[in-house]
């Protein structure tokens, strides 16, 4: 919650423009309180990793304000680093070192490191100590990376797509570990493109699209802000006007594409009941009937679609303005 006494991560109007002029992050603002688990969601190229790298202090923002534990992660690197753990989107370990050698190397660079065997045990790599990084599976590498991120018992954990490449079991084990760390007071910021992961773990989340935050809040808030849907085929010989008055059923939006009718409603039960009672009385069959309650996925797709329309409109306005 933004009402948390201590903001561990605080970002305002953050921007990142690459050397070629590409604007990857366009004025992003959010904050994460101590002990909170915040997820950044988005399609590929939405700007999640670019944002995360600014928080990790790997690059200086082109604009805006960024604070981690009250410090600037880039200019005050030495103050922030001993208190954070980072897992990059991929790689980061010499291919020819073994798991144990890698862990020792990392431990030697980490203040207050746990015993390396303990860290590797946490991610289930205890039996792979003598295996070279090169020979690990993608999932095992991901787990080694996670072990190194939590090695120093960090106050803040940055995880960039922590479960990409993991099988279902590994994914659940990772979730378990991350949840447990969160319960012990670790602040976690993770990016993911698995909606399920965000739903499962996040206290709050933000959906990024084209460098901006399109929606932010608790999962239920984000979902609630987007309507449920009903779709069906318009029966033969019927017109939209033959349907019962949609406004009275709580439908806020309707659309006819070919023969398919799509209704949006914040009151799914009321709208669906009204529609079905009407169909029963009229003796018509609603083919392809699909009643879908709002979900994060719906919200996500809606945002991606909406944002695209908005950008198109903006572009058109820009053109018109010239």
């Amino acid at each position, binding site marked *: 919650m933004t009402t948390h006494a201590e903001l561990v991560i605080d970002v305002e109007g953050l921007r990142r423009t690459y050397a070629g002029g590409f604007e990857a992050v366009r004025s992003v603002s959010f904050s994460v309180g101590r002990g909170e688990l915040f997820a950044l969601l988005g399609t590929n190229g939405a700007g999640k990793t670019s944002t995360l790298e600014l928080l990790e202090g790997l690059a200086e923002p082109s604009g805006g304000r960024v604070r981690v534990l009250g410090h600037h992660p880039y200019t005050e690197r030495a103050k922030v680093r001993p208190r954070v753990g980072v897992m990059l989107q991929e790689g980061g370990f010499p291919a020819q070192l073994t798991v144990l050698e890698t862990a020792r190397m990392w431990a030697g660079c980490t203040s207050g490191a746990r015993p390396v065997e303990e860290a590797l045990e946490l991610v289930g790599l205890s039996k792979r100590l003598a295996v070279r990084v090169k020979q690990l599976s993608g999932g095992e590498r991901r787990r080694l990376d996670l072990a190194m991120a939590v090695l120093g018992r960090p106050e803040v954990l940055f995880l960039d797509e922590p479960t990409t490449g993991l099988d279902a079991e590994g994914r659940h084990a990772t979730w378990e570990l991350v949840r447990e760390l969160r319960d*012990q007071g670790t602040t976690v910021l993770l990016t993911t493109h698995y909606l399920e992961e965000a739903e499962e773990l996040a206290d709050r989340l933000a959906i990024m699209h084209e460098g901006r935050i399109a929606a932010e809040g608790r999962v239920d808030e984000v979902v609630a802000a987007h309507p449920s849907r009903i779709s069906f085929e318009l029966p033969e010989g019927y017109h939209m006007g033959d349907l019962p008055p949609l406004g009275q059923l709580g439908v806020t939006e309707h659309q006819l594409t070919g023969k398919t009718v799509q209704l949006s409603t914040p009151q799914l039960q009321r709208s669906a009941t009204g529609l079905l009672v009407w169909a029963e009385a009229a003796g018509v069959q609603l083919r392809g009937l699909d009643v879908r309650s709002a979900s994060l996925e719906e919200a996500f797709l809606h945002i991606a679609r909406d944002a695209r329309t908005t950008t198109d409109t903006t572009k058109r306005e820009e053109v018109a303005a010239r």
Partner: protein
Amino acid sequence: MSTTTLTQGTHATGSAGPRTTPVGRMATLARAELTLLGRNRSSLVMVLVMPIVLTFSSWSAARGMDLDKMGLSIGTMVIPTSVAYVLIFGIYTTLVATYVARREELVLKRLRTGEPGDLEILAGTSVAALATALVQCLVLIVAGALVLGVKMPSNLLFVVVGIVFGIALAALLATATAAFTKSVESSQLTVAPVMLVSMFGSGLIFPLEVLPDTAARICELLPLSPVVELMRGGWSGSLTWSGGLGAMAIAAAWIVLSAYTVKKRFRWEPRR
């Protein structure tokens, strides 16, 4: 995955454990790099075999030269050349490949998310090669002096300064070259200019004295020339103080230029 260990007295996150120090962190990186060097066969050959093979070839070449005329002996000709080969193959080409490999593996990027500072990362990564090279230099100098029967250097300071500058310069040139190298494979090409120019233009294969005056003047300005000059002239006694200081100034200029290039151009992650 076991989660039991998590809950055993590890509640306080960011708990006070031993803090790392710059020296400790660099030692850790050095140890990892030494392990990696031992596992990289082509680097090992470069580091251990090349300087020795090339030393023998320059020895047999030197025997056919009229060195007395230039105030040199076989020893003062061959030993500095041998040290320079260590600088080139033990440090320069090896470190270019190492930095580029670590960058491509995203190791440098990953390290930068942690506690080591940028300089520590670069220095720590180079320690293994530098230490190996230093040992090789000492072995070659002692063995060379015994086998070739040379006297003690007339100006030990010049010789030591030459070696120290040489090591620093080779490491910095390697870091600067790595900034312009895209992959480990292409490093075989990007090291060629410095390598070849040094071998032919810095007095390794033949002393600069055999060149026409203008050519010799130009060659004296090449990066490894002052290093070789300090070692060779310091040993034979042919280098005056003003000549020695001039050589130090040239070497220092190359060191500053390389460091500046590194600061401006070094890339910490692959270009994608």
